[in-house]
């Protein structure tokens, strides 16, 4: 089970945070802060794993990857494989890359909801449901179409209501 996914920049500002077991916002803030404190203490070129039990309680592990100005952090328990989680971060980032063409922090800042839906396609209620970025992209495109369509329709009743008046 995956317990949390956090994307934050190297200043500790969260860019995306999702906790799969409910946490009150104050707790979320505290967790993100302590993760950042621990991450910023780590040297470059060391392993991608970090001790997480002091932050997230027993049976929790943490994998992170550092891309340019961003940390991608996955927290999970013993029913996930550490290296597979590392691959999953890769899948996530690849998908973002496909979606935004050479993704950078700004893309992530401005496309918060799209990033959220990408993550929701990959991880569902804490379980990994999709590992192919192609499939994720397909679903995302469908969702975007649906949203666009529903927004397009949305203007019509207003227009009619307005003109009628």
């Amino acid at each position, binding site marked *: 089970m995956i317990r949390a996914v956090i994307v934050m920049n190297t200043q500790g500002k969260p860019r995306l945070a999702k906790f799969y077991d*409910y946490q009150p916002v104050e707790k979320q803030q505290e967790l993100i802060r302590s993760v950042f404190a621990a991450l910023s203490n780590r*040297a470059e070129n060391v392993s991608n794993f970090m001790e997480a039990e002091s932050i997230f309680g027993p049976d929790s592990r943490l994998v992170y990857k550092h891309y340019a100005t961003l940390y991608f952090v996955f927290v999970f328990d013993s*029913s996930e*494989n550490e*290296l597979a989680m590392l691959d999953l971060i890769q899948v996530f980032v690849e998908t973002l890359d496909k979606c935004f063409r050479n993704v950078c922090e700004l893309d992530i800042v401005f496309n*918060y*909801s799209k990033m959220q839906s990408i993550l929701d396609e990959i991880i*569902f209620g804490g379980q*990994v449901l999709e590992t192919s970025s192609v499939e994720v992209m397909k679903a995302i495109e469908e969702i975007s179409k649906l949203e666009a369509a529903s927004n397009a329709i949305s203007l019509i009743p207003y227009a009619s209501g307005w003109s009628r*008046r």
Partner: protein
Amino acid sequence: MSSPSIMETLFQRTLEDLIKGFRLQLIGESAFISKAMEEIWKEIKSTNLQTKSIALQKLSYLGSLYFVDMSWSAFHCIECMSSPRFSQKRIGYVAVSQSFYDETPVLLLITNQLRKDLGNVNEFEAGLALDCLASIATVDLARDLTPNVFKLLGSSKIPLRKKAIGAILRVFEKYPDAVRVCFKRLVENLDSPDSRILSAVVGVFCELASRDPRSYLPLAPEFYRVLVDSKNNWVLIKILKIFAKLAALEPRVAKRIVEPVCEHMRRTGAKSLMFECIRTVVSSLSDYEAALKLAVSKIRELLGDEDANLKYLGLHALSVVARKQLWVVLENQEIVIKSLMDADANIRSESLRLVMAVISRSNVLDISRVLLSYGLKSDPGFCNEIIGSLLSACSHNLYEIVIDFDWYVSLLGEMSRIPHCQKGEEIKNQLIDIGMRVRDARSQLICVSRNLLIDPAFLGKPYLYGILCATAWVCGEYVEFSTNPTELVEALLQPRTSMLPPLIRAVYLQSVLKILIFCMYSHFQKWGSISFPSSHNLEGVLSESISKGTALESSDTLTSAQDDVFNPRKLRERIRLSFLLRRTDSVKSLLSNCCVIELALEPLLGTHEVEILERTRNVLGLIELIKQQIPDQLFPEEESLSREELEVWKLIRSMNDASCEELGPVSFTAQEKIRIPEGLVLEENLRELDLICGNLQPRSLSFFPQREERVDEWHDSEWRSREDLEPSNESMSLLVEHRKRHGLYYLPSSASNDYPLANDPRSGEHVPDETEDLVRLAAQSLAPKKKPNYSKPRPAVVRLDEGEATFPVVSNRSNSKYDLLSEVVHDVLQETNPMDKSSQKGKEKVRGDIPPGSKENLQDLVDPRREKLGSGKSKHRSHGKDRGHKIPQKVDGEKDENSERARKKGSHRHGRNKMRQRAEEQADLLAQTPDQIPDFLL
């Protein structure tokens, strides 16, 4: 009505505007957020769903990344999610998943909307509802929506079915009876040719099995097929996780899977799968030698890898092996030791854990030396980690691995001197514990304690106070092992002790009292009296010093002895003189001790701390008592003295008796052993006490009302002024005097100190500089020595009966939710098996690809057995069971609305019945499981 809403819609800031605003704002982040929140407040109340949803979207953005509370928006979330438009609905669902939890009050309102959306033809809308269910489902939601999720489990749309499978995990967790409805269809999905479905369903079983593996043993054949057939690494990893759990329970499963697991290990190029294979083998299949050897060779590959991740995981795997096969660690010891200096903290602590795994009686000395020298070189965090694990390893099972306690006690002293040592509490406990348990270690303990106490540098380090407290206690308690009690008294009273917290200072003072009593007692015992030797004692001493006892036999008193003509006068006079001289020395030293103590303690009479005050008074009182005897020394009038002296002597003897009573360790079960005296009613009402105390004033809570008043009065005026005055004249002169006498303890001269300072670099002198040396040293020490040659035998360690060190471990697996779940799974598996048999024909096709001989034979073998079990059970579970049988079948067959309603009713009623019955069945089930499960596995 519509015009303001249009204005709102047209001029509303979208999420994108908000984000841009964040980057451009100049008013500060928090001000910007509160401004945005004001807008959201207004907009979210709009009747226009578009305005509302955008406001909600902004709110959930702020809630997620800026930690704004959004629990108040629950009702708006529900409004948005019921919108007919996908984009608004999605915003609503995202907000619900993000902010709802079990106690959200409006949660009940979403059931219908979820049901509607779960049945939506649009797979994405149904997907949203499933996602929501997977994150926030409660017992009620899970119960009410089980039929809808069940329907989706058979959906032809792969992404939707996948999500339904994912959501079923939470449904099962919340509402175990859903298992009766959905389990069969979930298991059928294991046969799915689509790898995405398979991956999802295996994932769900992995989660379920990690909580209660035993319930899923009957599914082992299905899992086995996936293990052999699947080519998807994600699926294989999850299947291996399941099997690691199952194989630990059932040796026959282990036997079956060894070969395929090894095959995967050899074949795969994916490190993740390989690591999972290794983990499975070392944790659950370590009895199979060939597999273990293969796994160990793969571990070695990982350890040798450049990639820090693989190295870390290799060490991690090693620590799993180490629990059973120590030799594997010894084989790789060089890498392990080198990893102690790795740049990566994870790798360091992992290798530390490994080193701790191999520690034993024969190598504990060397390992401790190596580790401490590593600790001194590394950062404080890791250093403390090292100290902590050394302490716990050495103290494990009553210092099992420690043979030379003198060494261990000195090691504790050495640890205390390490800068940033934060394990004071643990060291303190061990110092006291060793003092009580190991008689032979006490003299070394005193020696180490003295060195720590005497060093004024320690008194400035609050993290060491715990240790100082222990050492002070040790000095008082075991003062008879000390060579120089005077020194101890001086150390305990040095000026900087004023920095200690009151409770620790009280321990210091108590130790002073004990030492003083000891000094007096030994003086009395040796010299008879303070002032004048009583005849009786003199005789004893003299007869000791000269063997000619007969020469003195007639001496009754000193005067009479002098007059005695019989004895050689000169000799006796000389003896007497030297005796008096030595005795006077002893008296002098005793007196000077008393003076030192008095000087140091008098200022403390003004303290507000009761613990200190009381102990100070005790010590001073005793000194007063002794001092009364001193002036008489000049005018010896033995007749009058001897009686008083006798009383002092009695007093001191009894005090010494009290303090030399040996304290032993206390068993954890000691309290239980005390039998409650007959007639004692502990729970009796204490009303009578109220009657007695009723007439007392409320402020009599303090036991010394008068004294309190006195202190109150004195506090502010008298003592304050006295304290102010003191340093100016009296205590200044005292300080000067003290400084003259004990220059040693004052800071400026501490450079020329004989005693090593706390952070003395010399203490690490023996540390070899080169890492290579350390590695070599460690390699030697790690290797098991055949003959540990110790000059000393291991001293006796006091051990109380019935293994006191093992705490009674309360196994509270009272996780009723999972118990319930596993019970239902049991039931369902037993039900579905007969059905399996009946639908064997249909299934045969799917199972055609199973290796021949494995399954068919198994079925033949199993059937008669299962029949028997079924018939045996039918007696117990007749009526409740019948309904249980019907429900899944009905669900299977019919799908129209009517039957669905009927089924719902049925399952409710059935659920209630079930509850009652479960208790009766449970015992039954437990008894049967061992026979019944293995049949599926052969």
